[in-house]
């Protein structure tokens, strides 16, 4: 099956590299941030995307990552200035509600859990912090997890339960859950040969995709206790195993991977200026030995490194990407 | 007058002191009133019961005296007034300052005061004045009184002896005001160097020493104009005012030499260096050890080259002072030599060369000692040179070898300064031999830097008056000849050739041999290098004749064989020009007409029969060379020689007269000044040009007008570009130099008329363009001499910008009027050059140009004006255009928009400089300038313009940051494109420029 990516629109406005793009849960807004220390909120007017809001002055250094709350009312922003800001749009306009301090240095990523009650951040200080959101919009640190031995690059919550994944410069992925009143690391996924830049869950949360500086993708499958394959599950905890490695499509590090919950397609963004989209093809043993094929390889999608790629959660096949060249692009996946 | 005197006194006291004193002084000066009656009239006020009135009256004496001519008052009158004033010193404390002020005036205006009066003033001041309680201005008055008396009544004050010294010390005690200190230091220096300080030497030094090192920062804008440097120098002179200070000052200086403040250390070393000759052996010897170790510390720390140099220099001065020949005794001399040896041993471990930097520093310290005197050299060199020579042998890395061999050469230069002094040199011969071995080793390496140093070193030790070994001299000469025929690299070559020259100058008898072997070894491939080298072998008449004849012979042969080769001809002609320049200021030059000038004319005539269309370019090049040679004749020949030479040339060129000259060949008759003659002949006018542009016009007598007329016609009519230009320059040079009141006046009018006719539109375009060219040259000539007729010439020229056919040419060339043309119009060439003529031209014509632009009827004509303006502006120094930049900026910006404007590069450099020196104008145009420059940097089709625009952008970063920051993001971002320019040279500048903009603010990232 052949696909292609059609460039819908290029969004210009940032004056420095763009690090992250994030769709709101309703799919109607796109938030972006980067080296110019600003957040831009883009929305559709008539047929084109325009910048609706420009959020400034909350951070003194690069804003590295963004995450919308599941209700779409809050936006969290992680910055190199060691803080995370929380923005509320309840009044219609975006207002900075709180600034979370605690990390020793650059915060690299932030993620909102599916329930909306928990928030995770990670930083170069090697730690992952879990924050509890109280009823009166206060944020309290619930746990500091220091299991990684290096810089933590990305955090991602499970789509349905309170399970957190993080990946790091130490080449591993860690999973965390709450056990007997405290958070703990419940799995370590080893396999990548260099920094793991990005992780994501699939729609049902039984699979994780990871990607990194070794320019490859890995698909990890969970095996519950008592699984039919008979894979041992020590301590009665699920075990994650790498069931597929996809390489050879990117020439330089993959900085971002995103798994579409609508189509099941995976998109990657890389330092080789290209975007790739992969789709699973049917095989005999899809659970234990899945196969993926490349659906699109968009070379020179941007003029410089691409830092982030994100599927629209509502509109199937709509993709946003952003780059060191300062631009954001919106693409539509098309069948040919 | 009496009543009016009182009236004026009253006016003074009531508050108009200036006018009142003026009136009185002028009355006294005109002898309408007597000075004594002024004092008498003042008496009532001087004795008034009111302190204020007495004060003002006292002050008035000074004010009036100040307005009288110097020395107006007799000694008697002076003594009398002094008495009054001294009495007032004892008056109420509020009157005292006025008395001091008036005394200050009196002592400066009335120079011969009686000796007793002078003494009286000093003693009264010392007794009555508590200087520290007074304001700075009044303290200043005290010092001025003393200063004046020191100058005028030196002996009287000297007679006061210790009383004066201690009195002065007490008065200046605790002075802090820089203005006063400057006076105090001057007084103190005078006192110390002229008076016996007696028992107060230490006190005197202490009162001065507490100011050392001077630490003074002038207030903003420095209203008093006193700099730290002035105070430093004044105090330094005090330190060196008497040898008696040595025992106090050296310990202080030594202490400050280890201060944490670099400026204090620097000042201390400078002061020691300056005082050393005064302190001499007696003052210095016992401190030698401490001076050694302090200087060593400073040198080896290597904080800055200024400090190292200052410390070394102090060492040199100190050692020079301790072995001054008059004060030598056996004891002291052995002390000195012990100290030298000690210093050497002290730094010995650094001389091994393991730490390159430290070694070089230690060597420099040893050299500082060695260069101080023959005696010191004799002790130091045998100690240190073996280490240095072994360092040179030991190291194999080029940079290390280079550092050591340079050091070695510096030592050899110290030896070289004693050339001819065989007694001193004999013991060093062996060392110099081992240095030779080093150099011979280095010559085998490929590094041209090392070879250069080796040759320099060999030259230093192998000059006849340094070495006794003739073979050594011979082998150096041989080496230099071989190298001069092979080496092209500019640094190395210039060392080879200057060494050759130095050796031959010292031993002229070697030059014959050098010339012979150079000529023998000359072949087709090395001819250029050989002819160049031959120029350097000429050191006397004999060698000149040989080389000169060789050049003439070679050129003659080459001309006859023109069809086959022309390269050597031009090399030879250029070398000939160099040779002439080189001997131009020597006695040899007297014979140059016969030896060179006439043969060159013969050569040119011979050549005129050989030129073909194919060799036309060579002809131009050769004639240009000869023109330059002839301008050397014009500049440097004696005036009478020029006259006779000119007579022969004029006869030849105007009458075709050949037979009467001593030309060697039978030459055909030629007519080089007839425009119908073939170009092969007319180009000979270049020889005339050479002479005319350079010679004193008074020397060109016979047939000058005739030549002028002929050249003028040739300039208008010759279709050969080279001939035309050469003739234009002849005409211009004569116009410029013609004596005032001579034919020039009645020349000009018919010339201008004729030119106007030639410019008329019914003529052919080439003819009109030639007339424009001639007009331009005439204008240049007349502007240079600031002639009153220039306005007519230039305004007509500017009006030609409107001409559709001639306008573009005028626009392109007009700027030549303000261009420097040192080869034609210069003092050296006896031209008449009015100072500031360019400024005059610019300011007189700027308005016409700007208006012309505004009123121009078409785009094309506007373009002509823009070209002219931008050309002129880019050739003028910025201080000339600066006042007009506001007016010019819009035009320059428009000129920048024209991508074909040939002045783009120059306009951009004007703007670059403007950024630094007229930031205001540039700043107010930033919003349009920055995008324009970015556009040119990225999109101009000419790489030179892209580079110039980028350079201009880089220069802008010198402006204050608030002007730049708004543009920073845009510039940094857009310059990314220039980084990918297809030309490497543009990219290099783009990277520099972008980096400069990135570095504007530390926060900015790439």
């Amino acid at each position: 099956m052949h696909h292609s990516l059609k460039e819908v629109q290029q969004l210009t406005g940032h004056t420095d590299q763009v690090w992250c793009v994030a769709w709101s849960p309703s799919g109607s807004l796109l938030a972006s941030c980067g080296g110019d220390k600003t957040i831009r909120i883009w929305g559709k007017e008539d047929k084109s995307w325009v910048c609706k809001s420009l959020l400034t002055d909350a951070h003194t250094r690069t804003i590295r990552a963004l995450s919308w709350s599941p209700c779409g009312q809050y936006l969290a922003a992680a910055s190199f200035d060691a803080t995370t800001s929380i923005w509320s749009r309840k009044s219609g306009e975006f207002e900075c509600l709180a600034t979370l301090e605690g990390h020793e240095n650059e915060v690299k990523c932030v993620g909102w859990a599916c329930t909306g009650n928990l928030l995770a951040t990670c930083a170069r200080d090697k730690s992952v912090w879990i924050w509890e959101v109280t009823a009166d919009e206060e944020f309290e640190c619930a746990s500091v997890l220091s299991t990684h031995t290096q810089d933590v690059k990305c955090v991602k919550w499970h789509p349905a339960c309170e399970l957190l994944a993080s990946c790091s410069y130490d080449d591993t992925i860690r999973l965390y859950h709450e056990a007997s009143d405290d958070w703990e690391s419940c799995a370590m996924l080893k396999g990548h040969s260099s920094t793991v830049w990005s992780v994501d869950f699939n729609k049902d949360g039984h699979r994780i995709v990871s990607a990194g500086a070794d320019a490859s993708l890995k698909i990890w499958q969970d095996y519950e206790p008592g699984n039919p394959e008979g894979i041992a599950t020590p301590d009665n905890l699920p075990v994650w195993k790498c069931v597929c490695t996809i390489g050879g499509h990117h020439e330089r590090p993959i900085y971002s991977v995103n798994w579409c919950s609508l189509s099941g397609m995976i998109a990657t963004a890389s330092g080789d200026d290209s975007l790739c989209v992969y789709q699973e093809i049917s095989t005999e043993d899809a659970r234990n030995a899945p196969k993926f094929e490349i659906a699109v390889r968009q070379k020179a999608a941007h003029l410089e490194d691409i830092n982030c790629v994100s599927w629209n959660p509502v509109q199937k096949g709509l993709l946003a990407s952003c780059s060191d060249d300062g631009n954001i692009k919106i693409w539509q996946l098309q069948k040919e | 007058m009496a009543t009016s005197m009182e009236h004026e006194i009253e006016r003074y006291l009531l508050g108009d002191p200036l006018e009142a004193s003026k009136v009185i002084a002028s009355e006294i000066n005109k002898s309408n009133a007597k000075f004594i009656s002024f004092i008498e009239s003042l008496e009532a006020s001087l004795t008034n019961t009111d302190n204020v009135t007495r004060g003002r009256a006292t002050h008035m004496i000074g004010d009036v005296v100040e307005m009288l001519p110097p020395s107006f008052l007799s000694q008697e009158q002076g003594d009398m007034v002094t008495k009054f004033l001294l009495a007032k010193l004892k008056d109420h404390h509020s009157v005292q300052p006025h008395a001091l002020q008036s005394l200050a005036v009196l002592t400066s205006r009335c120079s011969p005061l009686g000796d007793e009066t002078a003494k009286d003033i000093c003693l009264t001041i010392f007794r009555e004045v508590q200087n520290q309680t007074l304001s700075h201005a009044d303290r200043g008055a005290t010092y001025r009184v003393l200063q004046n008396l020191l100058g005028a009544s030196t002996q009287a004050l000297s007679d006061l002896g210790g009383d004066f010294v201690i009195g002065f010390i007490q008065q200046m005690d605790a002075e802090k005001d820089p203005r006063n200190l400057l006076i105090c230091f001057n007084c103190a220096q005078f006192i110390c160097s002229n008076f016996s300080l007696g028992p107060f030497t230490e006190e005197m030094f202490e009162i001065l020493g507490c100011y050392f090192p001077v630490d003074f920062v002038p207030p903003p804008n420095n209203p008093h104009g006193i700099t730290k440097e002035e105070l430093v120098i004044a105090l330094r002179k005090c330190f060196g005012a008497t040898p008696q200070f040595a025992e106090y000052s050296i310990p202080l200086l030594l202490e400050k030499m280890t201060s944490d403040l670099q400026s204090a250390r620097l000042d201390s070393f400078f002061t020691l260096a300056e005082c050393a000759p005064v302190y001499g052996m007696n003052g210095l010897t016992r401190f030698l050890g401490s001076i050694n170790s302090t200087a060593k510390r400073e040198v080896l720390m290597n904080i800055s080259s200024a400090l190292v140099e200052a410390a070394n220099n102090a060492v040199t001065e100190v050692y020079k002072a301790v072995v001054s020949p008059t004060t030598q005794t056996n004891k002291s001399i052995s002390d000195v030599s012990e100290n030298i040896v000690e210093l050497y041993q002290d730094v010995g471990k650094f001389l091994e060369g393991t730490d390159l930097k430290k070694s070089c520093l230690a060597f420099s310290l040893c050299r500082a000692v060695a260069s101080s005197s023959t005696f010191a050299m004799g002790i130091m060199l045998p100690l240190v040179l073996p280490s240095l020579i072994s360092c040179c042998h030991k190291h194999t890395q080029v940079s290390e070898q280079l550092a050591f061999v340079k050091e070695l050469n510096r030592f050899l230069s110290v030896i070289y300064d004693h050339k001819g002094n065989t007694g001193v040199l004999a013991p060093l011969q062996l060392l110099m031999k081992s240095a030779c071995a080093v150099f011979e080793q280095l010559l085998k390496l490929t590094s041209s830097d090392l070879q250069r140093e080796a040759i320099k070193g060999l030259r230093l030790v192998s000059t006849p008056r340094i070495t006794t070994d003739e073979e050594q001299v011979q082998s150096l000469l041989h080496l230099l000849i071989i190298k001069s025929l092979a080496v092209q690299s500019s640094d190395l070559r210039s060392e080879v050739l200057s060494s050759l020259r130095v050796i031959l100058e010292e031993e002229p008898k070697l030059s014959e041999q050098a010339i012979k072997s150079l000529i023998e070894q000359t072949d087709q491939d090395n001819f250029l290098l050989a002819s160049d080298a031959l120029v350097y072998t000429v050191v006397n008449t004999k060698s000149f004749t040989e080389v000169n004849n060789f050049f003439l012979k070679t050129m003659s042969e080459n001309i006859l064989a023109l069809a086959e080769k022309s390269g050597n001809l031009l090399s030879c002609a250029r070398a000939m020009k160099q040779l002439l320049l080189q001997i131009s200021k020597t006695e040899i030059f007297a014979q140059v007409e016969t030896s060179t000038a006439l043969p060159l004319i013969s050569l040119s005539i011979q050549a005129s029969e050989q030129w073909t269309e194919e060799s036309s370019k060579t002809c131009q090049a050769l004639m240009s060379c000869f023109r330059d040679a002839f301008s050397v004749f014009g500049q440097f020949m004696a005036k009478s020689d020029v006259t006779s030479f000119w007579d022969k040339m004029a006869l030849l060129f105007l009458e075709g007269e050949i037979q009467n000259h001593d030309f060697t060949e039978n030459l055909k008759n030629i007519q080089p000044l007839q425009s119908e003659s073939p170009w092969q002949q007319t180009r000979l006018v270049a020889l005339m040009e050479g002479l005319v542009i350079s010679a004193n016009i008074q020397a060109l007598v016979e047939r000058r007008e005739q030549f002028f007329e002929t050249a003028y016609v040739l300039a208008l009519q010759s279709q050969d570009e080279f001939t035309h230009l050469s003739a234009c320059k002849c005409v211009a040079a004569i116009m410029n130099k013609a004596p005032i009141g001579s034919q020039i006046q009645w020349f000009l009018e018919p010339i201008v008329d004729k030119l106007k006719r030639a410019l008329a539109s019914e003529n052919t375009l080439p003819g009109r363009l030639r007339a424009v060219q001639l007009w331009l040259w005439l204008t240049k000539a007349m502007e240079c001499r600031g002639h009153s007729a220039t306005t007519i010439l230039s305004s007509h020229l500017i009006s030609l910008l409107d001409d559709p056919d001639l306008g573009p040419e005028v626009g392109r060339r007009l700027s030549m009027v303000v261009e420097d043309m040192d080869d034609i119009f210069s003092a050296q060439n006896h031209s008449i050059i009015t100072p500031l003529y360019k400024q005059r031209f610019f300011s007189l014509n700027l308005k016409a140009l700007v208006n012309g632009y505004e009123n121009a009827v078409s785009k094309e004509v506007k373009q002509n004006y823009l070209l002219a303006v931008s050309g002129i502006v880019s050739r003028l120094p910025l201080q000339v255009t600066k006042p007009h930049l506001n007016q010019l900026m819009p035009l320059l910006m428009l000129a920048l928009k024209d991508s074909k404007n040939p002045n783009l590069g120059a306009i951009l450099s004007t703007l670059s400089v403007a950024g630094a020196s007229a930031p205001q104008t540039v700043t107010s145009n930033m919003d349009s300038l920055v995008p324009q420059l970015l556009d040119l940097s990225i999109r101009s089709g000419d790489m030179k313009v892209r580079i110039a625009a980028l350079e201009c952008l880089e220069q802008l970063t010198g402006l204050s940051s608030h002007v730049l920051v708004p543009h920073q993001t845009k510039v940094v971002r857009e310059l990314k494109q220039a980084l990918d320019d297809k030309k490497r040279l543009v990219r290099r500048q783009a990277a520099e420029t972008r980096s400069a903009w990135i570095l504007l603010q530390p926060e900015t990232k790439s």
Partner: protein
Amino acid sequence: MSELDNANPLVFEITKDRQILPEEEDDSVTDKFDRREIFDLIRVINDPEHPLTLEELNVVVESNIKVDDDKNSVYVEFVPTIPHCSMATLIGLSIRVKLLRSLPPRFKVDVKIAPGTHESELAVNKQLADKERVAAALENSHLLELVNQCLSKRATG
């Protein structure tokens, strides 16, 4: 600064300025990026602890540079003066930043320690390759100042 890591480095001769060829002054010819051009950009970088350039210390040599103008790639290997040089990361960062600022953005630049010349070769290489860390480092004013010092034109030679 406390003790120098390497107090007495060997000093190497510097290359002569690139000779300008006639075609480089011809506006119609495209000059491709070549090894020497990259070398000229980085050889003048100052060493963080000696008053010498990277070229004088032999930290960068022309033969350790690879350039492919068509494939937009630049690869630079450098040799720390001594295998335990604590300044290796700063030197690598300076080279990287100099190239980031001076080369068109189409180039992908890799800066690495020459194999076998430093004890922590892999760690330093990984750090230099991490664009996020480089970006963060350049927002650190202290570090940026150090880098800018390495990149500034030094008055004395």
